[in-house]
């Protein structure tokens, strides 16, 4: 696309967004209810949220780079960047957030057959079906390939028995993409299959787990004689590990990205602690740590762009997604520690209007999972040692 074409696209996008993005959808997200997850049972927090999703999905802009036949707009990465830039310009919220968009979609586009793509992708794009991810098990965390949820072959279907854990929003999801064991006679990486099924299938039960944040975004998910049709196998039987790894790579890039729309650390600290006569943060030690963290944040942001640009230019990101996941999540934890330091006593409030029901404290606790979910920091360091540095025995 030439520069003029891109300019035209930008101008058209700007006009369309101005006309179609409701005013209420141009304010910062303040809590989880502001996030549109979609799904069969989703309750929109406002008409504006619903209208915004409908308009954006009609344009294919909930999944801008997906092909038009599957509910996308077929945009190039450059055009997508323009679109996101224009949305940022007016402070437009994301119309739809989901694991379908973030994780399953890319995996289906790469590994799914035509029928699967046609059935599932448009529903993801329109926010009709909300997905969850069935990966970890009680005895398969960092050692994910040790998973044991068993799928027994019954001809045209499997009977699945077992348990998943840390299944994000399983209690709210409509469908699950799930790793099951279809063979246990060979090495642990062989015999894993990637299957899809409806969470309303008899025998599926999701129980929310109460976390240290007081919230329950994760569930234990139990399967008892769950019938899964073979047409819902993605890729080849017993070779689901390849898809699992591909998807984890995507997940890691996303987790590493963290929350960039946050107010700068130094502003939070200045509001809480005030400045001294020389216009410096009144806590000099904290000031130094914040400056250091903000410089790291800048350099990390550049690294995300650089790695994306490199993979765009035909170079694969590969194990570097582990580097981004590791660094990004550790940085995010650091930032929240500094925010807690800045907020002091006020940040410790758990239940009050003043603290918006302990928003900061709960957010701080949430970040502790960043370096555990999607592969712990230690697993990411192992991957870097093995695949990038090629250290012996890694």
């Amino acid at each position, binding site marked *: 696309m030439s520069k003029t074409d891109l300019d035209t696209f930008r101008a058209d996008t700007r006009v369309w967004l101005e006309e179609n993005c409701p005013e209420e959808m141009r304010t910062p997200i303040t809590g989880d209810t502001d996030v549109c997850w979609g799904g069969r049972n989703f309750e929109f927090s406002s008409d504006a949220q619903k209208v915004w999703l409908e308009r954006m999905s009609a344009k294919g802009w909930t999944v801008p780079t997906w092909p038009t036949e599957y509910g996308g707009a077929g945009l190039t990465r450059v055009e997508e960047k323009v679109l996101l830039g224009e949305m940022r310009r007016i402070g437009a919220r994301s119309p739809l957030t989901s694991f379908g968009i973030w994780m399953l979609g890319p995996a289906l586009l790469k590994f799914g057959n035509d029928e699967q793509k046609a059935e599932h992708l448009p529903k993801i794009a329109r926010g009709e079906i909300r997905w969850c991810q069935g990966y970890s098990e009680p005895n398969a965390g960092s050692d994910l390939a040790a998973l044991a949820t068993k799928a027994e072959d019954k001809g045209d279907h499997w009977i699945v028995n077992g348990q998943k854990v840390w299944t994000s929003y399983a209690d709210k999801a409509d469908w699950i993409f799930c790793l099951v064991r279809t063979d246990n006679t060979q090495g642990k990486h062989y015999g894993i299959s990637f299957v899809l099924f409806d969470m309303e299938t008899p025998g599926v039960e999701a129980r929310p787990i109460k976390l240290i944040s007081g919230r329950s975004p994760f569930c234990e998910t139990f399967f008892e004689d769950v019938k899964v049709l073979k047409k819902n196998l993605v890729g080849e039987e017993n070779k689901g590990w390849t898809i699992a790894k591909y998807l984890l790579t995507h997940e890691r890039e996303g987790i590493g990205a963290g929350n960039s729309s946050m107010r700068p650390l130094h502003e939070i600290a200045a509001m809480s602690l005030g400045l001294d006569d020389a216009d410096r943060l009144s806590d000099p030690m904290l000031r130094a740590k*914040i400056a*250091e963290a903000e410089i790291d944040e800048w350099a*990390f942001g*550049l690294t995300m762009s650089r790695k994306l640009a490199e993979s765009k230019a035909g170079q694969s990101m590969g194990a570097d997604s582990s580097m981004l996941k590791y660094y990004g999540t550790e940085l995010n934890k650091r930032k929240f520690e500094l925010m807690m330091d800045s907020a002091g006593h006020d940040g410790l409030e758990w239940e009050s209007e003043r603290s918006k029901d302990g928003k900061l404290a709960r957010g701080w606790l949430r970040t502790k999972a960043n370096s555990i979910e999607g592969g712990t920091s230690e697993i990411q360091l192992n991957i870097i040692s093995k695949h*990038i540095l090629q250290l012996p025995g890694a």
Partner: protein
Amino acid sequence: MALVLNEDEVMLRDTAEGFFADKASVKALRKLRDERDETGFDRALWSEMADMGFAGIAIGEDHGGVDMGFQAAGLLAEQMGRNLTASPFLSTAILAATVLREAGSDDQKNTWLPKIASGETVMAVALDEGPKHNPAGIETTAEKSGNGFRLNGSKAMVVDGHAADQLIVAAKTDDGLAFFLVDPKAKGVEIERTIMVDAHNSARIDLDNVEVDGDALIGDSNAEAALHKMLAAGRGIVAAELLGAGGEAFRSTVEYIKERKQFGVAVGSFQALQHRSSHLYSELEIARSAVLGALTALDAGDPKADRYCSMAKSKLGDVAKLAALEGVQMHGGVGMTDEYDIGLFLKRIRVLQELLGDAAYHQNEHAKAHSF
């Protein structure tokens, strides 16, 4: 922002990689050090670098340069960092050339820039004075004296100060900070070469009632803008050199722990070292982006380029230092010997991270710039 190298830049990097490894390796530095070479770098090498266009990398074509910009200059600096190359690249091709290009009169540019680009003239910029980098605290003065000026003050950490054919001295005038061309042989100029820990050039320079002509003043008697540009360029380029030095310290260390056996296995098979290596890999990747981001911003004339170069210098100071410290530790006993190169990297990185402001200096600058 172009964070991925274009074809020309990749070509330049590859050329530089071969050139410095071949002609200005760590071995060459050892030779200069051990023979107590009087100049402290190889002038023939500098001529060759000039022939390659390296000396004129940041000089316009109308003044005999190749004008490839600071991103390109950073690629050269990175390779020099990898090889611990001794050359007047920073002092002359970056710092002096930037001052002249930004502040110089047409006459001054016509006179000096072609001589820098051709490798004929080596220049040194005398800026800092105290034990730490502090451009805001310069006390050297330039008083009006007849048609010219009289300079008084003491300079420290003047890179290539004893080897320069021409000095550029930063001094306070009534109007602000200004730069002056000073002949190192002029009356009242006393230059003491200081042999440094890294075996690279540095000098202390005393200026005792040094009289210079009016046309020694580079441009205006307030050259703050040129000072900021020079500092940004210098910091960005030193950051690039740190990236090279830190990167090479890391690369050679990883190589070493793959070979070194204890308890019957390569020590690199121990997770204690693997995780620290992987962490360092990550830090170096983040650091590389900082350098690329800062130098592209500088080339693009981004108004925040000064900030970015300062931030990059901060990040690289920390990361390269970590690479050096981990490098020596992971080498174990041999890391303490002069025979192994890792110690030379530790020493060079110590100097580079101090030069033009250490990490803490630039963190403080970041905070000041954001009013906190």
